[in-house]
């Protein structure tokens, strides 16, 4: 039936399409190559090297060993504790986070921006500091010592929830803020009481955000390391700390690898689930409802938020108070001692030097995370033509989320076992720690930038192109004006995360070049009141630094920071 209209027509049907499609794929590949290589070399290789250590026995792959490990009673206890402590902490975080999300994003409250920023601080607070703060609060001589919760499972759940409540607030608050108020008003006009409106209209609309937040929080809780290690003592162990104990203390690499594999599988499933449930990304086109004045009916919400503030504030206040006391008297002695290496040879270098080191490392990690994260965000949000291209972009998106849930301990240890061999020996390189931290921060950078880029109406880029702007010029005209603030915010976020990173750093930092979290952990592990006081002071300094950075980030008013 079809008759070619001219001599050129049949050829024109196939060849040009191939050319155009190839060009697009090449651009995609060129943009993706740096991040893929980086993640491959510094994440996939170390992690698989670590796993191979456990799986390959005398040159033979032995999966039976994994099953043997998973059958051990102690492993069962660890898995069970991980599951229930993470579930309990997630439930607590959601319960505490929901009212605060409403109050801080929907109500016209004075200081709500400051409060939002402060409540984001626990998330970037070094896990070790959180551990120390709760220890200080709950130990026998502490303000809540009478509860007898020191080294209890409850303490761990409290610590994990403290750490993650800000995720719930950010994610749910962001969704709540951009919720169209009109359906609720319509329901009210039809005779629904405020409670009914909440139950029948608001809650269903928020459900994707709540589920998404909860799944991410669960992920973080289940792979919590620093908090469990400092609060759990020897009694309680999660999968993550167990991997640490198995590799460093017991040298049972096979068991560690088995647990890592299990963790990898569970994390991948959870990530896939949360990606599916993730609320529609906001971005430039997002409508933000104007906060409304506080009404009488809001008091329960405000009360719950006050409870949350006490919950978040008490450990920090105890921490600050503890850092200011020496031998039962108020003193700045602990802070003055930061210029020393502690008593009883606790450290090789003074804490101040560790602080300078931390900042240097964080700067390096930040530019790396920004470079990689920016490229990834760009690649995954460009409009796809055709199914194949869409699949490639989707797969890349998922690939770069992996570091979010894979045990930092596994990554850190994997660095040690794999990077010593091969073409480059990076083990002694000053870049090793920044690279590991950049990988930890990478998913957060991507999650901050991608929604913003995806929120730009692609027709803006098309309009620029139709006016003669090439791809680079389009990027500068259309994307950059929208994305520079989120870029800055992501930088601050990555910087704060890097400052507090402990899991991978604890493996990789050399004794003579430690970061502050590593120093803190070492100080609390060493006997001596002075060492403990120094740990408190160093924690306060670290917390204050991250808090300041996050306050600056919050001033940029980027909704996607800390949202997933």
């Amino acid at each position: 039936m079809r008759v070619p209209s001219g001599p050129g027509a049949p050829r024109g049907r196939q060849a040009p399409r191939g050319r155009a499609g190839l060009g697009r794929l090449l651009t995609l590949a060129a943009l993706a190559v740096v991040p893929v290589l980086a993640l491959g070399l510094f994440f996939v290789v170390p992690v698989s090297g670590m796993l191979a250590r456990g799986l390959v026995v005398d040159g033979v792959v032995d999966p039976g060993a994994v099953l043997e490990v998973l059958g051990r009673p102690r492993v069962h206890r660890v898995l069970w504790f991980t599951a229930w402590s993470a579930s309990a902490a997630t439930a607590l975080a959601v319960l505490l986070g929901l009212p605060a999300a409403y109050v801080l994003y929907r109500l016209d409250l004075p200081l709500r921006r400051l409060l939002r920023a402060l409540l984001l601080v626990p998330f970037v607070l070094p896990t070790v500091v959180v551990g120390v703060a709760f220890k200080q609060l709950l130990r026998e001589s502490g303000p809540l010592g009478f509860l007898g919760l020191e080294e209890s499972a409850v303490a761990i759940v409290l610590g994990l929830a403290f750490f993650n409540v800000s995720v719930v607030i950010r994610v749910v608050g962001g969704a709540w803020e951009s919720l169209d108020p009109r359906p609720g008003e319509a329901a009210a006009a039809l005779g629904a009481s405020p409670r009914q409106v909440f139950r029948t209209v608001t809650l269903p609309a928020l459900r994707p955000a709540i589920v998404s937040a909860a799944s991410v929080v669960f992920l973080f809780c289940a792979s919590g390391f620093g908090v469990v290690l400092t609060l759990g003592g020897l009694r309680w162990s999660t999968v993550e700390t167990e991997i640490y104990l198995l590799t460093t203390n017991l040298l049972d690499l096979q068991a560690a690898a088995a647990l890592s594999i299990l963790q990898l599988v569970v994390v991948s499933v959870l990530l896939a689930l949360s990606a599916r449930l993730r609320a529609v990304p906001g971005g430039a086109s997002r409508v933000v409802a104007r906060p409304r004045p506080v009404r009488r009916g809001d008091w329960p919400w405000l009360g719950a938020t006050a409870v949350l503030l006490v919950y978040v504030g008490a450990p920090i206040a105890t921490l600050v108070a503890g850092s200011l006391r020496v031998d039962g008297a108020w003193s700045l002695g602990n802070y003055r001692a930061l210029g020393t290496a502690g008593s009883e040879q606790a450290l090789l270098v003074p804490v101040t030097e560790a602080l300078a080191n931390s900042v240097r490392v964080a700067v390096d990690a930040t530019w790396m995370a920004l470079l990689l994260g920016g490229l990834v965000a760009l690649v995954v949000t460009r409009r796809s033509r055709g199914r194949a291209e869409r699949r490639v972009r989707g797969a890349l998106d998922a690939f770069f989320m992996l570091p979010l849930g894979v045990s930092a301990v596994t990554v850190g240890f994997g660095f040690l076992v794999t990077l010593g061999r091969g073409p480059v020996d990076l083990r002694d390189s000053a870049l090793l720690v920044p690279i590991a931290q950049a990988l930890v921060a990478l998913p957060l950078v991507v999650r901050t930038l991608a929604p913003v880029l995806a929120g730009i109406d692609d027709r803006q880029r098309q309009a620029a192109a139709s006016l003669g702007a090439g791809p680079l010029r389009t990027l500068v005209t259309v994307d950059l004006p929208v994305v520079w603030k989120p870029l800055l915010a992501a930088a601050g976020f990555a910087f704060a995360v890097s400052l507090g990173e402990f899991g991978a750093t604890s493996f990789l930092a050399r004794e003579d070049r430690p970061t502050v979290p590593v120093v803190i952990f070492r100080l609390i592990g060493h006997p001596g009141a002075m060492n403990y006081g120094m740990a408190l002071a160093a924690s306060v300094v670290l917390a204050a630094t991250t808090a300041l950075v996050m306050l600056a980030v919050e001033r940029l008013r980027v909704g996607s920071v800390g949202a997933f």
Partner: protein
Amino acid sequence: MLSLREVSISYDGVPAVEEVSLDLPDGQVLAVLGPSGSGKSTLLRAVAGLEDVTGGAVVWDGRDLAGVPTHRRGFALMFQDGQLFHHLSVARNVGYALRLRRVPRAQAARRVEELLELVGLSGYGERLPGTLSGGERQRVALARSLAVEPRLLLLDEPLSALDAGLRERLAGDLREILRAAGTTALLVTHDHEEAFAVADRLAVLREGRLVQEGAIGQVWRSPADTATALFLGYARVLTGPAAALVVEAAGLPDAPALAVRRSALSVDPAGALAGTVRAARDTPGQVRLVVDVAGVGEVDAVAGLERPPAPGEAVRLRVDPGRVAAIPG
């Protein structure tokens, strides 16, 4: 000259446009008219280079454009909602393409001023797009598109986002501006009023296929089929004996089907058709009736305002041959 040669476009194997061939001579304005989902926007995007053609070719002056990226085609694209760059002032939006081409500053400023005058927005240069009304934004978008003196201007439902009165005014302006600039333009729209107000030629697209193409008056006078007639704004299509009766009353040659405008039948004591008024409704210019005509059934008709017939009243109707169109089988 733009030529589409058997252009087919599919998304993941699902065809959106199938074997469409069209020619657009320089200086003319062609409207591609189609309901939503007809593939008209896809076709426009393919011409702009935003979609890959899966079969056939988009050809400009004899050259196949496959593989030529959007920014090298020299076709300006204007969107339904303008898509102005929000962070740039009106003048900088309009001068955007001039800056890309490194036109000297003074010359560019003069050109921007000219263009703003052309679209009736002199003195708006320093405003930000956020402070403009919808119609003003579309005018700025038009000026921005015209700044490059595009070989071809692509318009994607340029007036649909505006309210009715504004749309009518701007449609007339758009036509004049395009004429004055001598611009070749391809317009896609679902609104036949918009197409009639702006274009010289009309192509009707349905379910991805070209149904009809021609000079605008010719398409209007003889729609290819029933669906096209209804889409072009005819109120009803009569078939069989009903069509024969009305065709005869209109004094037209025999036709199997007849598309009838709402105002094709009017009350006239000397009219050839007889019927009973079922409903009457006042509108500003005339009274709109529904009349049950013997042998035809219920049809629309109009009457003058001076003595409108009441429901139940018997009337005679005259057929205006200029407001009906015969449809081939």
